[in-house]
């Protein structure tokens, strides 16, 4: 086998000098030692570095010592080359291209390569570093952009603005932690309206700018005394809160949290009330209020305001536990009117009001908002049955003036003693008719409404409903007191309870005394309403469902404006 060793050297002028040397051998060696077939003077090589053997059309290369060499760029200690395909060996700084010459000799082209062929570039080429914008540059760019847009812009705008000109603050919408409640919706985007001073928590003064006439819950000193005993955790929380400049306790924002989402601001939880009211008696011994912490568990019996003396305007608050009687001045009884089989029911039937007696709605009319009931109006609610007509002139009835005793007395004094009942304009049928065989006078012996004394007697027309009285030699009736709202510090909405029958709360069908107070008691309400977290409550009821902290006469915060169906 012929090995053709071809050396290529370049002259200083760049001319290549090619020298060929043919060696006939099966095996040649190469290395740093001069007695090798191929002498490669490189200190990086062993004296006898490798052997090249040609056999069976293939060229085998093996390292003789431990050091290896490079075959086609790969570090190996032995390898073979098909001379037709060719290959490249590298020993230290020498490169040997192996191929086949035209005459089937093995051609070894030896060249020396300059070191440092830009390895750093080759290394970095594999990395992404050159292909991407630098991490550091991207980091700073992003960070500065965010700081500029979300921090510097709002602060500079806030500091530079002219409060008198009502200028807004640029970019502070991104600071909002959530939408404002429905009532404060108009303040959306006007952060500076409440957040008046930088780094100062929202003060009550900001709230009072608009809420000018909000009612104080109680005198500040009493409030301070009433405040519940703080636990260790609470005290620590307040210390930290004060450290950060939070106002309170007792600040508006303690109960009214904003930025909790659009819609109604949620009513305060009962704990806000129970903190003080749960054990109020301990700290304010002179309070008239009973302890209240949870409607289902700790709540005093209701104390409605009602008239205890007939004819007096003065309303007194009495606990239902004392079974008070209401002196409204009437002699009216509910059970008589509601009896489905009694005389009243018969009359109602005849007047076309349906069978089964009068319903509550026959006399009691709700207010426009459905919350309460209008006071009973004689002309509208009673006179359909309890007629005050006493004379008929042509087609016109003369009737007594209700509510004016003197006028009534005057009218009655000159009234004709009617010989036949004029209460109804109808004739009796057949032989019972006027002039018939069986006609009889159906009026009382006195005739008509009778005399003033008769009318104002217990059995007279006035006495049907009123308590007559004789004062200072004058006949009159006891003035009627109609209470439309018994609970002035609590809220009750009849409309919200319209699924219930009236009698499930008001025992009117069993009341046979006008002085019966038909208000349901605490126990009755508790059959549906229990405290905020009572597990078996049909209606979990917080304090705010009936009570308002700021003591306004309208519906408290806890009442849903409209019941969802």
């Amino acid at each position, binding site marked *: 086998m012929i090995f053709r060793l071809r050396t290529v050297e370049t002259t200083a002028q760049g001319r290549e000098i090619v020298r060929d040397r043919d060696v006939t051998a099966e095996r040649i060696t190469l290395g740093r030692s001069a007695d090798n077939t191929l002498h490669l003077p490189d200190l990086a090589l062993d004296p006898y570095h490798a052997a090249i053997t040609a056999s069976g059309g293939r060229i085998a290369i093996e390292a003789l010592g431990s050091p290896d060499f490079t075959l086609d*760029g790969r570090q190996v200690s032995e390898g073979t080359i098909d001379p*037709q395909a060719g290959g490249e060996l590298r020993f230290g700084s020498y490169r040997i291209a192996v191929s086949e010459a035209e005459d089937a000799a093995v051609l070894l082209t030896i060249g020396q390569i300059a070191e440092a062929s830009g390895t750093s570039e080759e290394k970095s080429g594999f990395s992404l570093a050159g292909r991407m914008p630098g991490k550091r540059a991207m980091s700073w760019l992003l960070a500065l952009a965010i700081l500029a847009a979300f921090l510097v812009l709002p602060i500079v705008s806030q500091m530079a603005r002219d409060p008198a000109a009502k200028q807004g603050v640029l970019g502070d919408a991104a600071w909002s932690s959530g939408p404002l409640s429905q009532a404060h919706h108009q303040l959306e985007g006007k952060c500076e309206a409440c957040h008046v001073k930088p780094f100062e928590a929202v003060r009550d003064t900001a709230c009072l700018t608009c809420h000018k006439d909000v009612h104080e819950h109680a005198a500040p000193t009493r409030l301070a005394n009433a405040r519940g005993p703080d636990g260790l955790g609470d005290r620590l929380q307040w210390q930290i809160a004060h450290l950060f400049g939070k106002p309170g306790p007792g600040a508006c924002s303690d109960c009214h949290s904003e930025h909790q989402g659009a819609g109604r601001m949620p009513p305060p939880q009962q704990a806000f009330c129970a903190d003080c009211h749960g054990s109020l008696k301990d700290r304010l011994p002179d309070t008239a209020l009973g302890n209240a912490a949870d409607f289902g568990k700790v709540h005093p019996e209701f104390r409605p305001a009602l008239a205890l003396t007939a004819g007096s305007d003065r309303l007194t608050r009495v606990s239902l536990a004392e079974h008070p009687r209401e002196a409204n001045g009437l002699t009216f009884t509910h059970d008589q009117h509601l009896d489905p089989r009694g005389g009243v029911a018969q009359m109602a039937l005849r007047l076309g009001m349906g069978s089964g007696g009068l319903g509550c709605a026959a006399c009691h009319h709700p207010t426009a908002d459905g919350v309460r009931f209008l006071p009973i109006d004689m002309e509208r609610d009673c006179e359909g049955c309890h007629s005050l007509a006493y004379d008929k002139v042509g087609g016109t009835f003369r009737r007594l003036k209700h509510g004016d005793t003197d006028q009534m007395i005057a009218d009655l004094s000159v009234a004709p003693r009617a010989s036949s009942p004029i209460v109804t304009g109808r004739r009796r049928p057949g032989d019972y008719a006027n002039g018939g065989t069986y006609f009889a006078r159906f009026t009382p012996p006195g005739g008509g409404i009778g005399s003033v004394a008769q009318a104002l007697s217990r059995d007279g027309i006035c006495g049907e409903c009123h308590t007559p009285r004789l004062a200072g030699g004058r006949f009159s009736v006891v003035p009627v007191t109609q209470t439309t709202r018994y609970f002035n510090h609590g809220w009750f909405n009849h409309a919200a309870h319209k699924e219930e029958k009236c009698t499930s709360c008001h025992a009117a069908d069993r009341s046979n005394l006008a002085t019966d107070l038909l208000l349901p008691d605490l126990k009755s309400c508790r059959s549906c309403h229990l405290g905020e977290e009572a597990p078996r409550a049909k209606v979990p009821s917080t304090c705010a469902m009936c009570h308002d902290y700021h003591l306004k006469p309208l519906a408290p915060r806890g009442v849903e404006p409209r019941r969802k169906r």
Partner: protein
Amino acid sequence: MASAPRPSRQTARQLTADHEGFLRHRNFRWLKHAGALCVVAILAYTLIDVSPRPNGGTWLGYTLGTVGLVLIVWLSLLGVRKRTMTRGAWSLKAWTSAHVYLGLALIVIATLHTGFEFGWNVHTLGYALMLLVIASGLFGVVVYSVLPAALSNNREQMTQPQMVEALSAVDRQLQSAAQPLDPHWAGQVLAALGEGAFAGGLWSRLAGGKHGSATQQAIAAFDLASTEEAADPALVRVEALLQRRAAQLARMRRHMRLKALLEVWLYVHVPATFALIAALTAHVISVFYYW
């Protein structure tokens, strides 16, 4: 009485140290710590009734937020810490292990801090950036545990400069082997030689190089050579060299793809961390500015 031979303490410890990556460090010590932190946070969130509703503005919210802030600042300090490798209890490996698991715990802490209230504001921006950082970090953890084996298999003992050198070796042989070819074939070879390994941007790197490259096209052209041309040994040799070139290019591109996957997440992780710290600064200052 012969005692059974057993490895000395020293050897046992060395073995553990050798086989334990940052994920399994000290038998998942930091996974346990981070898990405990999450459990405490979840219990606090579910059991403590804050008013009016849980969010960043309650005392629990401020507490969770402070924990989260401290964690984020500490986690970002890995960028400084990693530049000094040390051993022992506060080794870089322990630090990295804690970085991974506490970083994952941050998902729980920060989400509870938000009280599940999100909006188009700087606060949610910070949260989103934090999730981006964590997601990219998670990607990094996964590729670091999966890809090095594939990278090593693909390299087949070659170093990066050797790969470059191997390609150059094939190229030089192609240069000389293609000398006898006529201009049509020489043009194909020249076009193939013009195709470097390092071309292509991020996406082509992640996709593992282009298909239908110049070398592949040249091979396809050589495959179409007529029978007489195919008898030319020079042509056969050049085609074999082109095949080798294509194989070497494919190896290098696989290598670069794996390397790109190993590196690319940091291009999200690091800038997003800086953005997160900026958003967090704005978040905290804005809260107190409009206190």
